[in-house]
């Protein structure tokens, strides 16, 4: 694995994407969602993906998370070539290494907060306990509540707890604050930031809100299915300092 040395720190690659394209063809319509994306993500970093709606951010995130396969190009997760994986191996990859957080929280309504997390920890190798995970997002007092008994922000934090409970290598968040007001959004971002810091999870975060870019180490801008810029952010801010 080629390690890159930058600013004297040894950086370990988590993802390496090579000329990834994704073409959707539905009913004669051809949409090029990704047109040749090269990207490397490093262990433990938090990157923000910015870009107009329809620019291909979610498509890339889903491909990174093993939900989808690119039309062409190669994608590595550490040594594992995801683009060569069978559907079953992709499932196993998700199970063992990936945590997802979506705009709509996607909790299982019939399970309590604790049980939603147990859902993941039961099939993970070295998980934290449901209590620990909820404690990380500040919801240790909501253990036995059902999703219907939680606010939107709380539901999203449970979703984050569920995503991090298995100590994933990567945490992929697609507009996690999109459905929340800014105060609640900050609490959610704090939870993400804490997980990234304490667990060293490589985190990719899609957002519309340019303000959020300040909490990242790198900002990746998308337009029209391509990366148009990658900017380092030397002064990482805490979520509570953000404005949007």
């Amino acid at each position, binding site marked *: 694995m080629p390690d890159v040395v930058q600013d004297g720190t040894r950086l370990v690659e988590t993802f390496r994407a090579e000329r990834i394209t994704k073409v959707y063809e539905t009913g004669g319509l051809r949409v090029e969602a990704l047109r040749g994306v090269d990207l490397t993500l490093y262990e433990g970093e938090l990157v923000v993906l910015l870009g107009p709606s329809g620019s291909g951010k979610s498509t890339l995130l889903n491909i990174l998370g093993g939900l989808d396969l690119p039309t062409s190009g190669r994608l590595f997760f550490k040594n594992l070539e995801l683009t060569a994986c069978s559907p079953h191996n992709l499932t196993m990859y998700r199970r063992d290494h990936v945590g997802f957080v979506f705009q709509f929280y996607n909790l299982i309504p019939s399970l309590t907060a604790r*049980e939603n997390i147990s859902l993941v920890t039961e099939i993970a190798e070295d998980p934290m306990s449901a209590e620990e995970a909820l404690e990380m997002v500040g919801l240790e007092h909501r253990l036995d509540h059902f999703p219907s008994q939680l606010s939107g922000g709380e539901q999203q934090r449970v979703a984050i707890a569920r995503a991090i409970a298995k100590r994933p290598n990567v945490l992929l968040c697609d507009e996690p604050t999109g459905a929340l007001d800014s105060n609640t959004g900050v609490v959610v971002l704090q939870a993400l930031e804490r997980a990234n810091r304490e667990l060293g999870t490589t985190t990719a975060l899609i957002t519309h809100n340019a303000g959020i870019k300040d909490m990242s180490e790198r900002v990746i801008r998308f337009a029209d299915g391509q990366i148009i810029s990658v900017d380092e952010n030397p002064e990482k801010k805490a979520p509570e300092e953000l404005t949007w």
Partner: protein
Amino acid sequence: MIRVDALNRKLLRDLWRIKGQAIAISMVMACGIALMISSFGTVTTLEESMNAFYDRTRFADVFATLKRAPDSLKKDIERIPGVSIIETRIVAAVNLDLPNMTEPATGQLLSLPERGAPLLNDVIILSGRYPSSQRPNEVAVTDAFANAHDLTVGDSFKAIINGNKRSLEIVGLGMTPEYIYALGPGSLMPDDKRFGVMWMGRKALAAAFDLDGAFNSLTISLQLGASEYEVIRRLDVLLEPYGGVGSYARKDQLSNFFLVNEITQLRTSGAVFPPVFLLVSAFLMNVVVSRIIATEREQIGLLKAFGYNDLEVGWVYLKLVLILVFIGLGMGIALGIWMGGGMITMYTTYYKFPLLNLGIDTGVFTSAAIISLIAGMLGGLGAVRQAARLSPAVAMAPPVPTSYKAGALSRFFAPLTISQPTRMIFRHVTRFPVRAGLTIIGVAFSVALMVMSLFFLDSIERVIAVYFFQAERQTLTLSFVEPRPALVEQEIQHLPGVIKTQPVRSVSVRLRNGHLSDRKAIQGIVSGADLARLLDTDQKVIEPPLGGLALSKHIANDLNLKVGDLVTVEVLQERRPVEQLPVVRLVEEYLGFQAYMHIDSLNRLMKEGPTVTGIHVMVDSRYADDLYATLKDTPGVAGIAQQTATLAGFRETMDNTMNVMIGFYVALASLIAFGVAYNAARIALSERSRALASLRVLGFTREEVTYILLGELGILTLASLPVGCLLGYSMALAMSPMLTTDLYNFPFVIEPSTYGWSIIVVCVSATICGLITRQRVFGLELVSALKTRE
């Protein structure tokens, strides 16, 4: 107008989206409609054909058999008030010797008037002509009998007529209202090979039986409004001195009895089954339409926000219901007509009369349409009303996650570790208890339907086991023209192939208890009988009672008698003694209901020495042909009832009719099970596709996710099995007495294998549905399921 088109297009797309479920609903509904149309159509057709044939042939109202009365008696009978037409005739049993048939067959020979057609019970000549009154060698036979033996006009066969072997030439083929269902003496099923009905000129027949200027059978038609009961009473008084054995009305005439009984049973099943199907389809309709409306909340809100009113919105969904109803109705009508045609064809093999084409009057169609509409509305209207009433603001707001509660069950299991997927299954089932309950009931119905249809077989198998293998174990029974001294048994014993014999003394009697009375036969049985044996209500062999009657439970019920009661026995033969006898025990009988006593007691009652009217014989099958050849030429033998042939015929009929019917019910049961299970699975899938997709994203495999969905289906199916068995048990218990007639007893027996098969069929059905659903789970679009908010 454009907006209407848009809405209709939406409607069609909705319909296309739910096509699987739509087909399931429409099919279940179609089954109900088809059953209703085919059974009512068949009932109507049978009834109309029967009435038309009875009218055309002037079928008699009252029948009487006697020994011998002079023609002059006719004048006295004419004076009975209410009597319209009288036809006297000669009826005789003959043994037949047919080419290509070693076993004996019996014939019923009826006289035709000297001139013209019979006044009553006309014979419709299909080809040829009536036999001439003078010629003793001419007969007309039923075309069923001729067909069974490949005989036709011009052919001949031999018959032993009053001890003389004669060659008879067939001059005509006919049909008669008296033998539409042609049961030979002692048989249980029509058998056109072994029993033939034939006609001969009156003079010729009178000469053969020494009945010149006399008759031994009588048929009467009544005037409108005449009292059948009074006519029969007076007729019996008149006929008594001439050896009358009791007259009876049309409703007790054997062939008519069977035909009417069949129609009644068909009418019952036509009324019992369709509602089940229609209720199940109403339930499915409700679930499916509610679900569509739930997924389209936002669209409904949008439509309303655009200015559509409640009625217009409701109408969109109501149309969906109506389309499903009309598809079901259309398929049901087509299926019903097809099935009805099949049933009519089946009837023509057992009931020999000109059957009209399946005629379904518009009333049946109209009621089918109304009933299916009601079923559709029952199911759909509630859901549609919900849609119409939804306020736009509420409809457009995102629905909050369905609220669940930790049930008692999960607290109970708390100490155990249940996996979260299993927990999801239980929570979902308990979250929608009404729906789960209805699904269970729906599947249970199909189990019950199976149990009930297989119960018929169990019941019949029990009848066969008890009747043929426990009670009536003889190979054949000879009956004599006249009672004979018991010594004749020894002669029979020396015939070739005879292994064992048992004497038979059978006496026609009227049993009377107060105002209740019934014409029956008393059978005399010897002690230690080994062929025809008497069984008590527990099917244990018992000895015939001395000095009292053993009575079939069925007769005891009819006459309101119990053990210890006295019953008046009026013998209708010979010296016609009348005596009071105690009911000593009750016996269980499945085929034909009779009274029994010790043969010695019966001889004493008849004031005769040891006398028999027949002999039961067990035959060594190797010498059967020799025996048959001897018997064919034995004078004085009036009939030979072959038990083994009866059993074979019985089984064949069962194979032809029961298996078709049961196959049909198995198909219906599977269809209901499939329809209900498929809908449950599809609804669960649609409601939970997001949850399932989430699980897939979290790294659950397709199999693990399928488990959650099908686990629920499995639990519901499992829960429905005992419910269904119980329901089937109760339905069979209720049906058993409904099916019991004066000739057959449908014992209530359900073998464990019946439950087993019912469960297997329903489980297979549910499994197929599970596999289909599994395919759907496998095809789940992960990304798009997560993008949408519910």
